[in-house]
């Protein structure tokens, strides 16, 4: 792969009930990314927006944000799914030789629709949609399958919530930041066993934008230190829950292995300095530890117990507070990339992992994380 760098990132604060319209939110993030990069829009030659028609309540949801994302007068396109996939398409356009600088945006106002009904629309209208499952109840099936198989207990999941909500206190963009205890999580209202209120992510609105550039541009534009894309891959598992091994994500393992191969990473736990993963529920972070090869299969609980994924551990996971602290659906994956970039530049403020040289960002989409996308970023060109 030729060299491509992230040269600018912008995020809004994540909140419930943002008063800005879709376009106003996207402009805030896109303008933020341009200012961050020290670029003008004239230096951007193409745009990828990331949307979801159901959350926005309109088909062709990308229409609303065309001007705000900078699409006027330049090639623009749109991905539907997680922001990591929008960014992946942006990366491919930047690598294609046709374009040099790509603006990637994602926006979502989860609070404006009915997220449970919207998620239910991902189920098969011919078969199981009528069961009325949504993200919480379907992921609860996965959580139990995983926890039961590997004897992960609810307290271990709760530790993820405690860690990430505490980390969020250091992130000015986070939506829900707080000091809580394992007991608080355990006592929070049961939603769908074993998932409790504090095991879930909030309903957040927001937008994020990143700018990708070819090596030539990135080396010219030095408003910020370029952060290089060293590996990226995505993979999709089977659709029906009953046809998957819910206790382990093959798709994540496949995506991670490919991304590591591209980046020359042999031992992810030792070579990656910081990871931002898509923890829509607490159990997910533990499962993703395993899929990402941070520990052996079934050892996710032991890894959180060891404290190594805490801020002061060997591999801090979600210093930003992760998705548990701000879950603006399509945006969340792109925000993981933005956070990884800030870490590698040493500009992550109070959430900075000192000396971070290699970072991982991860996104998911679909029922029980059917699709995974893994990014490896580095401050070094390699």
């Amino acid at each position, binding site marked *: 792969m030729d060299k491509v760098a992230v040269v600018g990132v912008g995020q809004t604060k994540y909140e419930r*009930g*943002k*008063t*800005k*319209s*879709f*376009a*106003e939110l996207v*402009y805030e993030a896109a303008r933020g990314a341009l200012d961050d990069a020290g670029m*003008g*829009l004239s230096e951007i030659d193409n745009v990828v927006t990331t949307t979801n028609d*159901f959350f926005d*309540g309109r088909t062709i949801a990308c229409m609303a944000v*065309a*001007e*705000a994302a*900078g*699409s*006027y*007068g330049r090639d623009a396109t749109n991905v539907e799914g997680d922001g990591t996939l929008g960014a992946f398409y942006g990366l491919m356009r930047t690598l294609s030789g046709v374009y040099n600088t790509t603006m990637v945006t994602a926006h979502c*106002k989860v*609070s*404006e*629709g*009915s997220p449970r*009904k*919207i998620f239910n629309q991902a189920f098969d*209208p*011919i078969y199981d949609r009528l069961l009325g499952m949504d993200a919480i109840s379907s992921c609860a099936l996965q959580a139990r399958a995983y926890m039961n198989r590997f004897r992960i207990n609810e307290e271990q999941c709760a530790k993820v919530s405690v860690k990430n909500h505490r980390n969020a206190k250091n992130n000015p963009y986070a939506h829900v930041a707080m000091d809580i205890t394992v007991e608080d999580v355990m006592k929070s209202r049961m939603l769908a066993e074993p998932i409790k209120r504090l095991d879930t992510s909030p309903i957040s609105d927001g937008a994020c934008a990143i700018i990708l550039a070819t090596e030539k541009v990135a080396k010219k534009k030095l408003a910020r230190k370029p952060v290089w894309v060293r590996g990226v891959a995505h993979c999709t598992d089977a659709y029906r829950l009953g046809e998957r091994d819910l206790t382990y994500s093959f798709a994540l393992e496949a995506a991670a292995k490919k991304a590591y191969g591209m980046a020359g990473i042999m031992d992810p736990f030792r070579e990656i300095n910081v990871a931002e993963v898509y923890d829509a529920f607490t159990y997910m972070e533990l499962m993703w530890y395993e899929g990402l090869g941070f520990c052996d299969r079934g050892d996710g609980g032991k890894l959180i117990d060891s404290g190594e994924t805490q801020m002061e551990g060997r591999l801090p996971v979600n210093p930003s507070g992760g998705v548990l602290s701000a879950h603006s659906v399509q945006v969340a994956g792109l925000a993981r990339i933005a956070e990884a970039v800030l870490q590698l530049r040493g500009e992550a403020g109070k959430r900075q992992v000192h000396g971070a040289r290699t970072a991982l960002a991860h996104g998911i989409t679909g029922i029980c994380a059917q699709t995974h996308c893994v990014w490896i970023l580095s401050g070094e060109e390699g």
Partner: protein
Amino acid sequence: MKNISTGSEGELLEMSSGGAEHVYRWYCGHYISKFLIGLRDRKTILGIKCSHCGRVYVPPREVCGRCYRTMDKWVDLGTEGSIYAFTVVKLPYIDPNTGKSIKVPRTDIYVKLDGADTCLMHWLDETDEKKITVGARVRAIFKESRRGTIHDIECFTQI
């Protein structure tokens, strides 16, 4: 478990969503809110001007896409303009807002308000296409009771 014959083409079933509905609570945003409040409180149509390229946009919005700059020069466009384009809808379709058929005929118009560079979409109170001409002058008719929606304008009428 026993094998069964594959059989011939049998009955073909369909699944129905029934009356499923999806409720949204859309924030109008900082610019459209002001525009709608203009309709409601002052019976006037507000546009916004880009101080860089001079284009006047209606509906108003934060960014001029061409210049990629925020706009803050609000322009009172009044209530009159001309028909830029129109269409008389004659074939009923399901209204996505209600799930029921729309009533036809219905005339959709694109109004170029005096002083604006873009068009506002609305209805015209004339459904006989022979009596409508592109370029004809039109005026907005406001409702007595207004709530801050685009329907605070009842429709446009030819002057």
